[in-house]
Each structure stands twice: as structure tokens, then as C-alpha cells.
């Protein structure tokens, strides 16, 4: 055998071994790729879809949920109501830190059961300051504790939202009624929005959310509480699948103290307007210029 052919043979063996090793190394990728259908892969951005396209998509999401999760659900696409601008206020004097709001959010919005996820986190803060450095969200004792007060924090639905500015693919945007939403089927999972949000309002699906079929809330919205895919970001959406139908967000309904006030900022008779007109309200991190739609106040 000449030197040349021997080298060629060795080269061919090397290349074959290399290719085989590569195929073997990449094998676990199948678990990911097998979960994605061609329709899902090619799906357009929500805002580029015609009303007919949306209907097709909603039915497909329902079928996907039945196939993947074994749950019969109804996915709707409620649009913003003209003349409605949503706003939220929270009375810090009466909030007692019971976290019923966080629990209601967890159930309403089909959150991951394993991490007990919720869009709401409640800070226990020392009386006499609004100092987050000495506050914590992991308290585990009877509430209200002496010397403490409680500040629930969720998405502030900023009018000048940093998360919307930084998204490289316009997967998140502000709707006409003021709600910042995410197209879960367009998000690429870069988490730049998580880095940008000043309020820790965004959550990433580090793995496929875990939720039993019988626990899935079947009353779903495309831009809100449908079960999220792995690898995308999610956040509070003011329960738009409820609020755009005249209902209150789940957290407002669940609050036993009446600390939570929600409504249409353009309606002069709404409770939210009464709070803004009669209480000295403030917003979190006003100096950042994010212009939140979420207000806090104390009774006095």
C-alpha cells in the first residue's frame, strides 16, 4: 500500500469516527427538536396575523395543549377595549402580607408547580423606611409581624418600559390599554428584558413548566395565561383574559383586606380614579423614568 493511499484511508477513518462522535454527542438534542412541529417553527409574529390566522392559531394551541398536557382548554384572543386604560393601586396600610394574591396568580395563570411560581412577590419591610436592602420575600411566619409592613411587587406595566425597548425581536410590547404583553411563540429567550426590568417582574422558563392536566385553568388567553413553552420569558399581564371581559384580575379578587384597587383610568367613577384623586400615591423607582401604571399609597 502506497503512502498516499494509506494516508487517505486513515483520513477517511478519522473523518468517519469524527462524524459518528458528533452525531452521538448531539443525540440529546432530539428531545428538544421532537417537541417542535413545523407549524410552530414557522409561526409568524402575533401582530402580523390576520383575524383568520389568529383563529387557526388559537385552535392549534388548544390542540397542542391537549396533546402535550392532556387538558381541554379554551384559548381566546381578547383585544384591548377602546376607551379603557388600565391602572392599579395598592394600599400599603392594609396589606397584611398573607400572599393570597400570589397564590391566586399561581393558580389563575397556570404557573409551574415545581417552583411555586407567581408574578407577585411580597416584600416584608421594616416599619419606618422603604428600604429594600433590609426587606425580604422569603419570610415564613404568622403575618402581620410586629414592626413590619408588606409591599407586594409585580409588573408595573410601565408606560416607558425598558423591557420593551431592549427586546431584539419585538416579542414584547405595550398594548393600547396599557398592558405590556409577550408573544411566547416569538420570544427567543435571550433574557435581555430580565436584565433590563427594574422591578424583577419577568420570569424565564428554565425548563418545561410542570402542571397536572386537572390543575390547568382552561380559561386561557393567547397573550396571557396559556401554559408557556420552555425557554421563553413571561410576566404579569393584568389577567387580560379576565379584565378585558369586565372581570377583576385574580389577585384583586383574592385579596382579603381590600388593599388592591384596579380599574379604568379614563372612567371618572372608577375606584382607581378615586384613589388617584384622593390619596397621596407614589410609584416605585420614579427616578428611573419608567412611568409605572402601578401606584402605592398609605392610608392617612
Amino acid at each position, binding site marked *: 500500500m502506497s503512502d498516499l493511499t494509506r494516508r487517505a484511508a486513515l*483520513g477517511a477513518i478519522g473523518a468517519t469516527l*469524527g462524524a459518528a*462522535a*458528533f452525531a*452521538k*454527542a*448531539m443525540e*440529546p*438534542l*432530539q*428531545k*428538544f*427538536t421532537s417537541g417542535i412541529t413545523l407549524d410552530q*417553527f414557522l409561526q409568524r*409574529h402575533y401582530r*402580523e396575523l390576520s383575524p383568520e390566522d389568529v383563529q387557526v392559531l388559537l385552535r392549534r394551541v388548544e390542540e397542542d395543549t391537549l396533546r402535550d398536557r392532556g387538558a381541554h382548554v379554551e384559548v381566546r384572543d381578547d383585544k384591548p377595549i377602546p376607551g379603557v386604560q388600565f391602572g392599579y393601586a395598592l394600599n400599603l396600610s392594609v396589606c397584611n402580607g398573607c400572599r393570597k394574591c400570589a397564590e391566586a396568580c399561581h393558580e389563575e395563570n397556570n404557573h409551574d408547580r415545581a417552583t411555586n411560581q407567581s408574578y407577585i412577590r411580597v*416584600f416584608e419591610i421594616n416599619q419606618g423606611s422603604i428600604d*429594600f*436592602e433590609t*426587606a*425580604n*420575600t422569603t419570610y415564613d411566619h404568622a403575618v402581620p409581624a410586629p414592626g413590619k409592613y408588606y409591599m407586594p*411587587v409585580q409588573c408595573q406595566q410601565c408606560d416607558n418600559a*425598558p423591557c420593551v*425597548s*431592549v*427586546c*431584539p*425581536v*419585538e*416579542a414584547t410590547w405595550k398594548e393600547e390599554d396599557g398592558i405590556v404583553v409577550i408573544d411566547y411563540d*416569538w*420570544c*427567543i*429567550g*435571550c*433574557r*435581555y428584558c*430580565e*436584565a*433590563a*426590568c*427594574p*422591578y*424583577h417582574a*419577568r*420570569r*424565564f*422558563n*428554565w*425548563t*418545561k413548566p410542570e402542571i397536572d392536566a386537572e390543575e390547568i385553568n382552561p380559561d386561557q388567553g393567547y397573550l396571557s395565561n396559556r401554559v408557556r*413553552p*420552555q*425557554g*421563553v*420569558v413571561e410576566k404579569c399581564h393584568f389577567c387580560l383574559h379576565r379584565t378585558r371581559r369586565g372581570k377583576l384580575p385574580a389577585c384583586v379578587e383574592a385579596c382579603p383586606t381590600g388593599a388592591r384597587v384596579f380599574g379604568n383610568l379614563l372612567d371618572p367613577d372608577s375606584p382607581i380614579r378615586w384613589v388617584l384623586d384622593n390619596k397621596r400615591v407614589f410609584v416605585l*423607582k420614579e427616578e*428611573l*423614568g419608567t412611568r409605572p401604571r402601578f401606584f402605592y399609597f398609605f392610608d392617612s
Partner: protein
Amino acid sequence: MSTANTTTTTVLASANDESHLVTYPRFLWECLKISFAGGPIFYAWMTLLTALALVGANAWANQMGEGMILTNMTDHVSWGLYIANFTFGVGLAAGAVMMVIPAYLYDDEEMHDVVIIGELLAIAAIIVCVAFVIVDMGRPDRLWHMIPGLGRFHWPMSMLAWDVLVLNGYLLLNLHITGYMIYSRFIGKPLRRTWYVPFVFLSVAWAISIHTVTAFLYTGLGSRPFWNDAIIAPRFIASAFVTGPAFLILALNLIRRLGRLEIPDGPIETLTSILRVTVWINLFLLSAEVFTQFYTGGTHAASAHYLYFGLEGKRALVPWIWSAIALNGTAAVILISPAGRRHAGLVLVSCVMTFTGVWIEKGMGMVVPGFVPSTMHELVEYVPSLTEWKLTVGIWAMGIGIFTVAVKIATHMLTGRSGLGPAARSRGGRH
């Protein structure tokens, strides 16, 4: 040079008459052949790099299957080792321009002969950066959403959209410049300045832009005081001009020993002179930042406290950052000391030290404290998982492999050992 070109042109007339449709595929085929041919050291080196890259590929496949839960990132520290390496890699790519500037702006003839090594480093480093971004994405299957026209490219608002533009632009510029030079040499045609010189000058400005835009990714975030600081972009540029020359000095010495391209002392000396200054500028900018943080104090300095001294008993980054400062400081002193000027070996040691120092300082030392404490002042620490380390090693192995093969192809072609026509063989490595 001009007479040599005339004779070359006549001798190679037959080769030049052929269409690029014929010669370009032959060129690519030749590149492929060179990539797979070499001595025992080359085979051992490439086998090692391939094996490491495969470990990384396997870790990525697992990460995609199970989700990014296999990393130790959380909603609190949502970027980690991957984005740290991405940031560092952009600096390495930009720093490569420190060979281009002497060669083209100052007409340094000897640098001119080896400047292609810098341009090839830029290519390899950008590919590494892109890989780190892709493995950090939760949904790389949706990468096409970023393609202008096909997806929805959020330009000019998103700094990440800008970064996609400048990084890919820099990659294309350097691919064109190096590809044109090597291909011209392969077919034995003289270089036409209009085909590459404007691109070279553009690449100098572009190199600065890639690292500035990468800094703006961070500095534009008002919610994170550790990053929301105008000095980050100048610091990035300064440290890029540390890592670029440091890596290139090491690479040129290795090529001189193992490769067949003649490397004169001049370029190495020029790069060492640059490095002597930039390590100190880097340390100066660092001290300016440290003073501002600690003298002012308050909540805004919490991240710096966490980084340098630990906060509330949490101190995962403290050993890292002090190692970085020790490495950079020692290298800076060695480089200006009389001994460091006399012994080439000490320069090489300083290069390794400061390269590692900057990797820590502007990698983990820059990215992670931005998240600790988080925006609502919660202290959640981050230490990379095994998956993250495997992927990181794998991606760098891939990048070094690409650089090795690219340098091999370039030296083969530029020294005239491959080419169409006999005249190509008699020429030196100049362009």
C-alpha cells in the same frame, strides 16, 4: 515588488485566464485539504480540540433537551458564564485591530507581513462570541426572528439588535479582507488596493464599534447601577487592547516555532510596546471606577462591595476578582520593569497573566455583580454549573481550532506552498 508582480503575471497568465467559477472551488478544495493535512503535533492538537468541542456540543444538546435549568442561572442572575465569555470574546476580536493599525495607519512594513494573523483572530473570536450568544438563548430555533426582513428586527431601539449588526458586519469585513488576500495569492494575481484597503480602514473603526455597542448593552440599563456607568465602554476598549496584543504575542511566538511563516521581531516588539501602555490604562480606568464606587458608597455601590469584599457573608466572586487584580497588576509591573524588557520569556508570562486577568475581570467580574444584589436588592449568588463549564471549554476549543486551521491555510498560501502555477512557489510571505 512591481517587477516581481509583472513576471508573476506573465508566468501565471494561463491560470489567470480561468474563470473564478473554476478557480474558487479549487481554492476551497485546497483550503479543505490543508485543514486536514499536517504532522503529528498538528493531529494531536486538533484531536484534542475536537474532543473538547464535542464535550461542549454534547452539553449543549443536553441543555436544549432539559432546558436551561442545567445551568446555575436564575431569574435573579439571568446571565452568567456564557455572556461573560461573550463579552470577553468581543474584546478579543476588537483587540486584534492592534495589528491592523500599525500596519496600515503607520505603514509598519514588518507588521504588514503578519497582519493577517490579527485579522484571522478577529474572525475566530467573533465566531466564538456568536456561539456563546446562541448557547445562552432559550430558543435558538427562533434565531431567524432576528433576521432583518424575515423576522422582526427591533432596530434601532434594541442595543442587542445593534450588536447583531456590528458583530456580523465585523465578521464579514474580516472574512472579505483575509479571503481576498489569500485567494489572490492562490491564483497568483496581484492585490488591487481598491479591493481591500478601504475595507481595512473600515474594519479599524468597526472594531471600536463592536466593543462600544457591547458596552452599551449594559450601560443602557438604568436599573443596574453597576453597569449604568459611562466608564464601561472606555474600559472595554482599554482591556480589549490588552487581550488582543497579549494573545497575538503568544500566537506569533507559537507560529514562529511551529509554523513555517517567518515572523520577524518587529511586530512582536510593537505589540509588546502597545501592551506596556494598555495594561496601565486598563488599571487606571479600573481604579477610577473603584474610587467612585467606594468613596460615594450607598446602595449604588452594593454590587462593587459584593464583588470586592462580599456582602452579607456572600463572597463567591471575591477570590476571582482579587486574582484578576493580582494577575493584571503583576503583569503591568513586569512589563515595565528592566527585567521584563530584557527577557522575552517574562513578556510571554505577562501575556498569559494579563489575558487571564482580563478574562476574569470583564467576564464574570463585570457581568455577575450587575445582578447581585438584584434590582430589588435581593442577594442570590451564582456559581457556574458543570454544563456551563463544559460548554465554555467546548466553544473556546472550537474557536482555537478555527484559528489554528485559518493560520495554517494562510501561511500555506502566503508562503506560496499552495497555488496555481510555479511562480507562486518562489515568492515570500509578503503582501
